Structures are given as structure tokens and as C-alpha cells.
């Protein structure tokens, strides 16, 4: 559909090759392409402009490595900047109250009711909550029935009041009911409304005031265009919402609205909807979104390839070791072997989103591992299991044995230490899912 940005940039950057340094002149064409990519992805006009200016500042004066294509380098800069803007620390929803109350708001057709069902289902099945859904859309025909049907599907009770046309009253009564019956989480669905509809905006402000929710989520369609900023800003001005839900991401939209909204209201994107089924709810991955806005989708193939190649049993064992802090140089070595088994290192590097692209042309041959393998092979089994015992004289011996220098041995040990520490840190996160892991660690 869209020409890959990276390729396009390479083309426009041809001039630059061999010039050594990024300058105003040789970057102009590229920035235009970046801007077009962002606009094609529905990033807001003004934000795209400010953003490219920022990227320009970032890039000016940087040396162009001979081994890296300048276009790829630019993609890398743009990608990182995008991910940073959309990311930050992941923020969970606040479900600490008893009952905690979550208010759902958004435009017509954005997917509020479906999301309400999904959230209830997630909280019930994964967080052990006992949620109550409140049907607060008294306007759209059969909206209440829709929520009732979903409630039945997921086994969650839905509070309705067919006689009332007053969302404030329904919400208040529903929460009272939740307290009586011991529900610990209440999700209030509301009617879709336009930000310019004064009366409807007053109404949702009144709902907020009456029920004082712990969490207000703004639900927005990922396919939204330039208007996303206006809508998000209006809703935020009126409700000061806590987070954003991006729906219909199972489509093929590039989803630039995510960036626009993040920029204009500075609220985290907390969930993404990825299908019509009740399980189709995911947490937000800024890196993936950055790939998507730029039109790069390599993460999928990376994950698939990795899943093919990695012996899951072995991975499980490894995980245990990491958790117990027993990860040693032997494991490190077997990792290298696994990587080598996966094929061409260069291809592999190129598949890591945000990294690979920029580094596709760095030449990494399998020899890159040779020194490391030699060093590890010169260690005794004790040293491999328990690297802390590797003192100065042992280092000298290892260097001699492997035909490397003490500095190189030092560096490897230091890197190994760091790797181990980071792995230990990561192992808290449960990380069964590779894709989730990948993203988690790139934040």
C-alpha cells in the first residue's frame, strides 16, 4: 500500500552518501519524506511539522557512517523519537477503590461498549475482580441490549434501568447497587458524543462529578484522521481523562492518531483493541506503534522466526536459571550457538525493529562471535558457572589461552555481568510471551 519509508528514504538520501555529515541541505528532501510518511499515517499536520523539525535538530551534524545507509539511519532516529513520544512508563489502570469506578467516554462508533465488555472480561479472568457493567447509553437504539448480550457472553452482570433516560441517575444507582452486592469494580459505559455537542459534554461532565471515578478512559478509533487532536483535546478539557484506548487496531490503519493524541493531551495509551472478540484486548506497545506509523512490520517475522527456532523446553530451563541467578557462561555460549543456528546474523539484526533497520549494513559476520567463544572456552567449568571467582590472574590466563587480551576478557565479563543483571530484572515480568517481552524491554 505505502512504499516502505526506509526504502524511500534511501532513495532520497542517495545524494548524501559519501558526504560524511548530515547538513541542512542534504537532509531537506529526506525530512519531506518523513513528513509525508507521518501525514499519510494521519499524524496531525502541526504535530508532523514540529516533529520533523525536532528530528532535523537531532540529525544535523551527525556523522554518516559509511557502513550504514543514511536513510536507514534517519528511520532509526525518527522511529526512536516516535516511540519515545508515545511511550514513557507504562501506566496501569487504577482499580484500587472499593468498588473502583471506571468511566468510559468517546465519540459515536469508537467502540466504547465493546471495550467495556473486554475490560470487564479481562479484570474478571486475569485480575480476579468481580466487575459490574453499567449501561449508561440511553440514546442509541439497543445500546443497552448490546451491553446486556456482551455481559451474558462473558458472565458479567449488567446494571440497567430501562425506565430512566438519565445517565447520571443510572450511574449513581448502579454504583449503589454494586456496593450492596459487593462488586469491587464498576465500569460505566456511556453514549457516544461529539466534542462540539455542548449539552452532551455537560452531561458526561455531570456523570463524572456524580460518581467521581478513579479512572476515566477515552476511547478512540485508530482510523481517526486529523480531527483526533480536536476531539481528544475537548474531551480532556472537559473530563481530564486518565488514559486512552485505541480501538480497531486489527485493521490496517497506520494509526498516526495515537501520536497526535499523545502529543496534544499527554495522557498514556493504556489499551488497544485488536478484534471483535471479548479477549481481543492488549496493552499498548509504543515501539510497535512507531513501526506501524512508519510502515515497518518486521517484528512479526522476527517473532515467528524466533518461535520456530527456539526450543521452548530449553528456554524454560534457562528462565529458571535466570530467576535463580545461575545463568553462567555455558548458557551464554549455548545462546551464541542458538543465534548462529538461526541463520545469517545480519538478517537477524535487520529484523529487530528500530535497531536492525538502521544497522542492516553494519557488517556482522559469524566471526564476530569467535573471540567470545574462545574466551569462554578458555575458562574452567567452575569459572563458567560462577564468574565472580574470575580474578586478575585468572583473567590473564584466560586471555593467554584464548589468544585475546586482558581488556577483551574484561569487557566480556563486564558485558556478561550487565546482561545477567538485566535478565534478572526482566524475569520478574512473567514474560511468557515473546512479543510482549520484546516490547517490554525496548521501553
Amino acid at each position, binding site marked *: *500500500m505505502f512504499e516502505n519509508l526506509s526504502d524511500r528514504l534511501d532513495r532520497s538520501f542517495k545524494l548524501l552518501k559519501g558526504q560524511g555529515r548530515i547538513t541542512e541541505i542534504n537532509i531537506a528532501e529526506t525530512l519531506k519524506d518523513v513528513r*509525508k510518511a507521518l*501525514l499519510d*499515517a*494521519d499524524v*496531525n499536520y*502541526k504535530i508532523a511539522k514540529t*516533529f520533523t523539525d*525536532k528530528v532535523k535538530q*537531532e540529525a544535523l551534524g*551527525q*556523522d554518516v557512517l559509511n*557502513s550504514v545507509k543514511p536513510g536507514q539511519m534517519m528511520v532509526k532516529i525518527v522511529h526512536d523519537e516516535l516511540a*519515545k513520544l508515545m511511550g514513557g512508563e507504562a501506566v496501569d489502570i487504577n482499580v484500587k477503590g472499593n468498588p473502583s469506578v471506571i468511566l468510559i467516554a468517546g*465519540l*459515536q*462508533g469508537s467502540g466504547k461498549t465493546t471495550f467495556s465488555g473486554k475490560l470487564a472480561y479481562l479484570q474478571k479472568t486475569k485480575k480476579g475482580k468481580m466487575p459490574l457493567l453499567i449501561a449508561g447509553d440511553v440514546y442509541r*437504539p*439497543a*445500546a443497552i*441490549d448490546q*451491553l*446486556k448480550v456482551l455481559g451474558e457472553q462473558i458472565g458479567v452482570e449488567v446494571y440497567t434501568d430501562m425506565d430512566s433516560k438519565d445517565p447520571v441517575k443510572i450511574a449513581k444507582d448502579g454504583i449503589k447497587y454494586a456496593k450492596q452486592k459487593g462488586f469491587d469494580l464498576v465500569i460505566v459505559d456511556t453514549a457516544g458524543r461529539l466534542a*462540539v455537542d455542548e449539552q452532551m459534554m455537560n452531561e458526561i461532565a455531570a456523570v463524572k462529578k456524580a460518581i467521581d471515578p478513579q479512572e476515566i478512559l477515552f476511547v478512540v*478509533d485508530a*482510523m*481517526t*484522521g*486529523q*480531527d483526533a*487532536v480536536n*476531539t481528544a*483535546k475537548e474531551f480532556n478539557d472537559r473530563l481530564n481523562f486518565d488514559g486512552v484506548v485505541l480501538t*480497531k487496531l486489527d*485493521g*490496517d490503519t*497506520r494509526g498516526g*492518531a495515537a501520536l497526535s493524541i499523545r*502529543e496534544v493531551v499527554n495522557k498514556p495509551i493504556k489499551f488497544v483493541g485488536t478484534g471483535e472478540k471479548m479477549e481481543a484486548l492488549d496493552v499498548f506497545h509504543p515501539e510497535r506503534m512507531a513501526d506501524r506509523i512508519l510502515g515497518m512490520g518486521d517484528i512479526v517475522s522476527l517473532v515467528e522466526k*524466533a518461535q520456530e527456532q*527456539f526450543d521452548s523446553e530449553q*528456554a524454560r530451563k*534457562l528462565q529458571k536459571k535466570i530467576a535463580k541467578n545461575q545463568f553462567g557462561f555455558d548458557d551464554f555460549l549455548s*545462546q551464541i550457538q542458538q*543465534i548462529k543456528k538461526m541463520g545469517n546474523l545480519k538478517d537477524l539484526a535487520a529484523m*529487530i525493529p528500530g535497531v536492525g533497520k538502521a544497522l542492516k549494513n*553494519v557488517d*556482522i559476520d559469524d566471526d*564476530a562471535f569467535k573471540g*567470545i567463544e574462545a574466551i569462554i572456552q578458555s575458562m574452567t567449568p567452575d569459572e563458567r558457572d560462577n564468574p565472580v571467582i574470575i580474578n586478575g590472574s585468572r583473567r590473564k590466563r584466560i586471555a593467554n589461552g584464548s589468544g585475546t587480551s586482558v581488556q577483551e576478557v574484561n569487557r566480556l565479563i563486564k*558485558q556478561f555481568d*550487565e*546482561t545477567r543483571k*538485566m535478565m534478572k530484572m526482566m*524475569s520478574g515480568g512473567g514474560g*511468557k*510471551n*515473546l512479543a510482549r*517481552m520484546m516490547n517490554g*524491554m525496548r521501553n
Partner: protein
Amino acid sequence: MGKAFFVIRTFLFNLNPKFQLAMGIFSSNKKEKLDKGLSKTKESVFKKLSRVVVGKTTVDDDVLDNLEEVLISSDVGVDTTIRIIERIQKRVSEDKYLGTSELNILLKEEIEKLLLENNTTDVDEFIVPETKNNLPYIIMVVGVNGVGKTTTIGKLAYQFKKAGKSVYIGAGDTFRAAAIDQLEVWAQRADVPIVKQKMGSDPASVAYDTLASAIKNKADVVLIDTAGRLHNKINLMNELSKVKNVMQKLIPEAPHEVLLVLDGSTGQNAFEQAKQFTKATEVTSLALTKLDGTAKGGVVIGISDQFKIPVKYIGIGEGIEDLQVFNRNEFVDSLFN
């Protein structure tokens, strides 16, 4: 498994000095806050243009830059915007002393050219075209989730009925929770009969039943609702083709019209929607909804031009009367207000 990958990554970074070099380059300085001065009330483009143009006698780059901003901010899209601007530039160079007052007219002309003329002669009327053998005119309504298909059907049924036609509605969304109930409410409001089956039944069979009833009762027009579906889901798109084919068993020309509903706030993805729905069902007309908000719906300009599909209706609210026959002139005006 994830750990293993973590190792790989750490490796790739640490292993090769070139990596470190490459990575080092990208370390960024602290970012200053973006200027978030997106003005709440948009200045009208003509006001803006005239401001830029003070003291100038001709259309220059400043003016064109402003024009670009307005068009893109209305979701017109980069390619279509460039085309429009190039056309203007050409006209400007042909006529050296073109001022900004002429620009307004020029601009409208150029954009209107991109929008296909709708077939209706009288722009304020909802018309049901004649069909072969006086069989009912079948309109199948398609689109992605939540764009306003069901609502548009309710509004159309009301208008056709008001125009003295006999209308049938088919509840072809058998998938979404309470979609049938929703359409039933609209059928009641418009006071027209609805043909339905249970939730989960085959939409093609519902469509067939609807046509059968409509033919038997000599109806003039039939509106078939369908479940919202994202255009990249092949199975669901095939299902639409099937609904279409089944209807042709009763009326070979059916559906006479495939109405693709687009949400006015949708961005460039609407192109892909038009493309995929056209591929599956040969879309013949467009409806643009939710134009009562601040979204401009500019994306239809490029779509109408590229796919040669006319925009027929616009939705301007949730009430039963909030549907209008599309008017190019007014639409283009609204882009600049």
C-alpha cells in the same frame, strides 16, 4: 524464550564496536515540550489566506503553504493536496495577476472537479431509480465497524418512505450484539417492515428472505444492513460477496447499489476501505457520516476521484432527519469554514 532474545539483543549491541558507534550517534538531548498551540477555534481559511496576503497582489508560496495546511488538516491527504496545489499553481502561472479573491473561486472549482457529480438531478431529493421489470431497487449497505451503517439505513428508510415509496429493511447484521434490535427500532421509527432472523444466522439467507418478501409485496426499495467488518479480513469480505451473489438468484441486477458508509472523521485509511470494499462488492456510492462534528471528511475528495464513486449522502446527526443528499458546492465550502 524472551530472555533468550534479550541476550541476543544485548549481544548484538555489545559485540561489535560498530554497533556501539551506530547506537551512540542516536543518543538524544533532552526534548523541549512541543508547542501545543493547536487553536481551538479554527480560523477560516479564507480569513487566514487574506491575512497572509495583505500587501500582496498575487498568490505566492505563503498562500499555497496555508492552503496546504487547510487541506491536509481536513484529511484531504498529501497526494490529493499536492494535486490540487499543482493545479492552482498552473492556473496562477497562466494568469499572472491572479489575486486572492480569484483564488477562492479557483480553489472551489478545482476541488469540485475532483468530486464526481452525483447522479441525482435535483440535489435536495432522495430518489429511487427505476429498475427492470419494476422489481424493487436493492441497496446493500457496507462499511467498517461503527461508521453509521444502521443509522444511515434508518434515515434513508424514513426519507424514501416520505417520498411515497414502499420500503423494506433486511437485518443482515446477524453478528454484532443487539444489532437486530437496533435496526428494529429504526424500522419502527421510519414505520417500514423489517425482515430478520435470529442472531448468528446466515446473513445471505436474511438478504434472500428480505428480497423475497419485498418482491412479493411489490416494494420499491430494499435496504440491506450488514455487519461492520474491517476490510483487511478476507473471510468477512468474502461473506459480503456471498450475500451479493445470493441476492442475484432472485434479482439478477441486485444489488443495484452498494453504499459504502465512511465515517467523516476517518483519515487516510478510508482509501483502503474504499479499495477493499470495492474489490469485494463493487461499491457504487458513498455516504459520509458524522459531519456534524469538527471533522471535515476531506478524504472523500481523493476517493471519489480515484475510484470514480460518487458521494451520495451525508450524515449530520443522530436524528432520523439528519441525512442529506450530498452537494459538492456546500461540501467544498464547509472545508474552508
